Structure formats: structure tokens, C-alpha cells
């Protein structure tokens, strides 16, 4: 098993997105990967300004999202994990509707917002294990204050993964894993077990394939999260 095989596994969980919109309004769905998402277009009633998507998996209807709301996903608010604003944020529901959906061209800001949603769950539950991998020393360094606070003020077991030649940071109460080569340092990931509370388990896995263009997915599927966590522990400790 490798991290790229987790991406391949999600390619096989098929989604259908039906877009009800005017012709010139459909660019927002170009984000999604045709390997796992089939996009169909249908007409709105004449003159209707309220485009929307309906999303289906193999069990049927998953959710619906207004196109205006979907545009917000592409320019999401960045909260800190402990911000109260998370609780009322519609962004969380949107992430749940679109989980296990492969995206091909998300930018850093979008993934940061999704990462923060995962960290917020960890903050609220306050227990369990959070494993986080970075694609660069700069990324790890930028998030250091967040993980210092998560590790210090909760009972979370925080594990950070990076390259050996990135040097510090050292974070008290967190475990740092360093690898000199391979997939650690090549993927952006977070996986949280919610201390066994399946309703709060979540993960994100993405790879930067062009400057600020990410390919990957997020998931609230407890089995998939457990699988990813198990893989990280077995392979990297």
C-alpha cells in the first residue's frame, strides 16, 4: 500500500453530479475529476437565476448545493481550529456533501479551510489521534502555532510527518516523524480518529501536482479514515 493507492481507491467510488444551470454558469464543476465524477447538465426553468447541483453516490441522493454556495467553497473562510464560527458554518455541511469526491485543481486556500475543519473536530473532541503530513518545511512551519496549541491544550495525540532535512520545529507534546525520501513530504494529509467516535472521524489527502494546484479528496468515511491511519502507523510509526 502507498498513499497514491488511497487516491486510486477513491477514484473507484463513483459520484454523479447533475448541474441545473444556465450554459455560462457551469464552470464551477470543472474542479472535479472525471475519473470519479460523472457530470450531467440539465436545464433550469426559463429565466431562473438559482442554479444548483444535486449529488449522488451508489446509494442515491447525497445532497444539493446552490451554485452561489459552491462558489464559496472555492473561496472559503479560514478560521482557526478553536473559533466558535465553525459551529454555525455551513461550510461543514458542504464538505460532508462533497466528501469522497476527487478534485483536480483545488488551491492551497481551499485545502487549508478543509484542514481547519478537521482540526476543529479534533479540538472539540479533545481526545484521540491526529496525524498530519506536510509538503514543505514552510507549510509545517506556518502551522506550528496551531499544532502547539492543539497539543498543549487538549489530550490529543498529535503526530506530524515531514522530511529529515527540514530541521525543527520541535513541538512539545507532539511527536515528529521524519523521513528522508519517498511519499512523506510529497503529500498533504490529515487523519483524525476522533478517539473512536465514528461520526467525527475525518481525513484529507492531497498532492500538489502543479504550483498551487492540488489533486485529492477529503472523507468522513470512518473505515477509510481508519485504513489511512493504520497505514501511517504501520509504515512510519
Amino acid at each position, binding site marked *: 500500500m502507498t498513499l497514491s493507492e488511497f487516491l486510486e481507491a477513491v477514484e473507484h467510488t463513483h459520484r454523479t453530479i*447533475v448541474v*441545473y444551470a444556465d450554459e455560462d454558469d457551469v464552470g464551477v464543476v470543472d474542479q472535479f475529476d472525471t475519473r470519479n465524477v460523472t457530470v450531467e447538465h440539465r*436545464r*433550469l*426553468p*426559463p*429565466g*431562473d*437565476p*438559482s*442554479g*444548483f*447541483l*444535486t449529488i449522488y453516490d451508489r446509494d442515491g*441522493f*447525497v*445532497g*444539493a*448545493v*446552490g*451554485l*452561489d*454556495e459552491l462558489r464559496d467553497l472555492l473561496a472559503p473562510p479560514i478560521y482557526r481550529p478553536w473559533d466558535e464560527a465553525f459551529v454555525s458554518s*455551513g461550510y461543514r*455541511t*458542504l464538505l*460532508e*456533501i462533497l466528501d469522497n469526491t476527487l478534485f483536480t485543481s483545488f488551491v492551497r486556500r481551499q485545502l487549508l479551510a478543509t484542514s481547519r475543519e478537521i482540526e476543529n473536530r479534533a479540538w472539540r473532541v479533545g481526545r484521540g489521534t491526529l496525524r498530519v503530513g506536510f509538503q514543505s518545511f514552510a507549510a509545517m512551519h506556518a502551522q506550528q502555532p496551531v499544532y502547539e496549541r492543539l497539543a498543549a491544550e487538549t489530550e490529543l495525540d498529535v503526530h506530524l510527518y515531514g522530511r529529515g532535512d527540514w530541521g525543527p520545529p520541535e513541538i512539545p507534546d507532539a511527536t515528529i516523524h521524519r523521513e528522508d525520501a519517498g511519499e512523506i513530504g510529497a503529500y498533504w494529509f490529515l487523519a483524525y480518529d476522533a478517539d473512536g467516535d465514528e461520526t467525527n472521524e475525518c481525513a484529507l489527502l492531497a498532492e500538489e501536482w502543479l504550483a498551487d494546484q492540488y489533486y485529492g479528496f477529503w472523507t468522513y468515511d470512518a473505515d477509510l479514515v481508519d485504513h489511512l491511519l493504520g497505514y501511517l502507523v504501520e509504515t512510519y510509526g
Partner: protein
Amino acid sequence: MSGKDERDLFDGRRLGQIDDAVFTVMSDRHRRVALYFLLEYERMTLAELADVVTGWTAARRNGMATREERARVSSALYHHHVPEMVDAGLVDYDAATETVALAPLPDDVLELVEQTREYENHERRDAS
């Protein structure tokens, strides 16, 4: 829609010829949306109708809808809205295929539904 047509429909004489049951149908937003989509597609399964009513309603409040909300819409359509629309003569329902089809509508009723749709579209554009 020209000013003349609007006067014609709303000067009271023609409106008076429309059955009250039609106005009752038009008083509910989910039923109106179902009618707008049926005017466009003519025939939809109950499941498709539940999908678009759920999605359209979510879009109008700048939001989203989950499986649970769609299940509530579907149940209300099946037990309540569609039977009312059938009773008002606006749609036909085929239980075997769970399909809702637009009934042949008198011109006055068609005009009422279309003008209401235009009004709601304008209202939405003004709000956003």
C-alpha cells in the same frame, strides 16, 4: 409578458374563472417549484421532482440540502403536494411508474403559473 396581458389576467374577470384549488396549490413554494419544473420537463419521476425541489429551495436560500431534507421533501410531495395538484387538475400521477406529468392547462392557468414564476425570478435577482 405585455402590459395588456397582465391587465387581462389580473383585472378580475379572468382570475375569477380560475378554480380556487389552483390558488391553493400556488400558495405553497414547493408546489410552485414543482410546477415550474414540470412546465419545462412536462413529465418527471417523483424522485426527480424531489431532487429539483430540494436543490432549488437550497439554492434560493444560498445554502445546501442533505439526504434528510430531501427525504422530507419527497415524503411531503408524495403524501400531500402531488395529490393536491392532481385534485386541482394541474398534473396527472401514474402510481405504477411514480411519474408526475403536467396536465393540459387552460391558458389562464398557464399564464398564472408563468407570471408567478417571472415574479419569483425577479424577486430573486433583486435580492442577490
